[in-house]
């Protein structure tokens, strides 16, 4: 069952796992932000990210450099996220969980179809901001791109943590999610806080998409498996914890890569189911995930 073992290879697998994990973490962060601020699971997160990444591709195709296109894409993503919350999510905010799930699923389908219709279904290359050359870290070749992805993910979560904890707007966002009634009484415009949450999440997704596309090639279905891993990472870390999303992502990435490489039975076909079984078992033991807080309800 266990394959031959060398330290170099282990380090390489570890690095690959961390890189994989950082990819899930980016999208997981977006999922957590939306859940935290609006108590909704956004099944369209992946498709939103794909759509914005395609916009980036189009801009770069028309001659803009990555870093020129970057802020434009973020602005578009923000506006899109806000618009989606106001137009599609807000009307069903008080409906049953099932209805809201179905609406975000519908959104996912719609965006996926729209992406295909506008840009076609073929894979294409996406030139990212980091070079693909490798550097030697203690005998282990690691690509600059991988390092870049990890740094960006961790940077994002740090920024977000600071934002939520220390700024007035961050506090207002948290308050609106926790107690909308009382929030209104202290003067917070709850509706716009919810929209802001979606805007921020859309921006996070856009960044994640632009980080991932150079690695996996850009096509309309690019985010589908990643979305699932991202959900797993978010649940693992605790659905309302941004730190949990990143820790969960990296933990998940490393675990899956290791299992896939060293446990022959799992190989590459059963990586996904293996991840799910792990998460499932964890949820049975810790319903809130690693860092999450769940209101205990005893009946």
């Amino acid at each position, binding site marked *: 069952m266990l394959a031959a073992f060398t330290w170099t290879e282990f380090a390489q697998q570890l690095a690959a796992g961390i890189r994989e994990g950082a990819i899930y973490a980016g999208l997981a962060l977006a999922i957590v932000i939306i859940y935290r601020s609006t108590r909704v699971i956004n099944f369209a997160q992946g498709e939103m990210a794909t759509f914005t990444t395609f916009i980036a591709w189009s801009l770069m195709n028309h001659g803009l450099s990555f870093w020129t296109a970057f802020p434009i894409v973020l602005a578009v993503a923000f506006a899109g996220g806000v618009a989606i919350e106001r137009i599609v999510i807000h009307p069903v905010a008080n409906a049953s969980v099932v209805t809201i799930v179905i609406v975000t699923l519908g959104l996912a389908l719609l965006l996926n179809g729209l992406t295909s219709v506008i840009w076609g279904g073929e894979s294409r290359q996406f030139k990212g901001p980091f070079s693909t050359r490798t550097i030697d870290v203690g005998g282990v070749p690691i690509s600059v791109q991988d390092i870049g992805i990890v740094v960006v993910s961790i940077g994002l979560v740090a920024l977000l943590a600071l934002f939520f904890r220390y700024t007035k707007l961050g506090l207002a966002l948290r308050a609106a999610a926790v107690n909308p009634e009382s929030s209104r009484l202290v003067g917070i415009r709850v509706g716009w806080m919810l929209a802001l949450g979606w805007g921020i999440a859309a921006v996070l997704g856009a960044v994640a998409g632009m980080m991932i596309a150079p690695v996996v090639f850009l096509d309309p279905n690019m985010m589908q498996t990643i979305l699932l891993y991202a*959900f797993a990472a978010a649940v693992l870390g605790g659905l309302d914890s941004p730190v949990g999303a990143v820790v969960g992502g990296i933990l998940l990435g490393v675990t899956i890569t290791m299992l896939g490489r060293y446990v022959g039975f799992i190989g590459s076909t059963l990586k996904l189911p293996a991840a799910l079984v792990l998460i499932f078992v964890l*949820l049975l033991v810790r319903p809130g995930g690693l860092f999450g807080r769940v209101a205990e309800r005893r009946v």
Partner: protein
Amino acid sequence: MRLRLWLELAGFAVLAVVVAAVPRFVSDFRARELAIVGMYFIALLGLSILTGHSGQISLGHGAFMAIGGYTTAVLSVNGVYGHQIRDLWTIPIAGVIAGVAGLLVGLPALRLSGLYLALITFGIAVSFPQLPKKFDHFLGGTTGKILALPRPPFGLSTTTNNWMYYLTWGIALVLLLAAWSLVRGKTGRALKAIRDSEVAAASSGVSLAKYKTLAFGISAFYAGVAGSLYAIANAYVNPDVFPIILSVYLVVGLAVGGLDSLVTLIAGAGLIYFLQNHADTVARWLNHLPALNLDPKQPGIPSLVFGAVLIVVMLLLPGGAGGLLRRLFGSLTGRR
């Protein structure tokens, strides 16, 4: 109350007559299409019991259909100890095996609340297609398994497609009756109580564990039967026959048909089938709108239309077709 009961039974009788008569008026190919709609209908009935009536979201029911379909395939191709089983008899077996799988999922699912359950079942839907690839010796891998073409029994002289139609809709009507009586009775009330408030239901003595797992098992049974019929009709199974998106389509069909309705799910089933296989018609129809120039063959069109329909229906008609009908006829039967 009695009036409503008689109206519903009368409606059922009318439905049965219509179902029996339809093949006489439609082409053979149409009969096949309607058979497949019937299979989706069966799956949706089960999903309605689970999601509509007991409030548990499942985004993975395609996997239970796959279990049913693969059971039928394995039993009729590999057989038991080399003894191949005729496709008809595999249907109940497939249902039961899928049902047991449902119970096995339902049990740990008790610990998960709405959104977490949705995510886990979604994960099941995504993981499931990997299994036939892994156990390819037994389950046929990516190429899958090929079954014999469905034959009408007892040498009845009817076409294959008509036979599938009658088989499917016969089973569908029986299962509809079963679902209807379940929902009307004590179990149905317990399920609805659980959906509306688990705390209140439990405090009233309703065993959450028993009814929630039961709902999972029953809905999985229905999906398994549907999957089994689907395998028989297709005469082959492989991972692409039960793709990930199928689970999403089932939820779509449920929402549009009416979350806790039964008969109107036929509309939902029809929608699933129509959008999957007649997307080009939709695109051509959409092209009549000004400023739109869509290539009907574009792969994105079904998803685009599906998604838009879903959003619009949920925004305007959260109760789906069933909810609309209830509002219209509620006043007729004097029900508020």
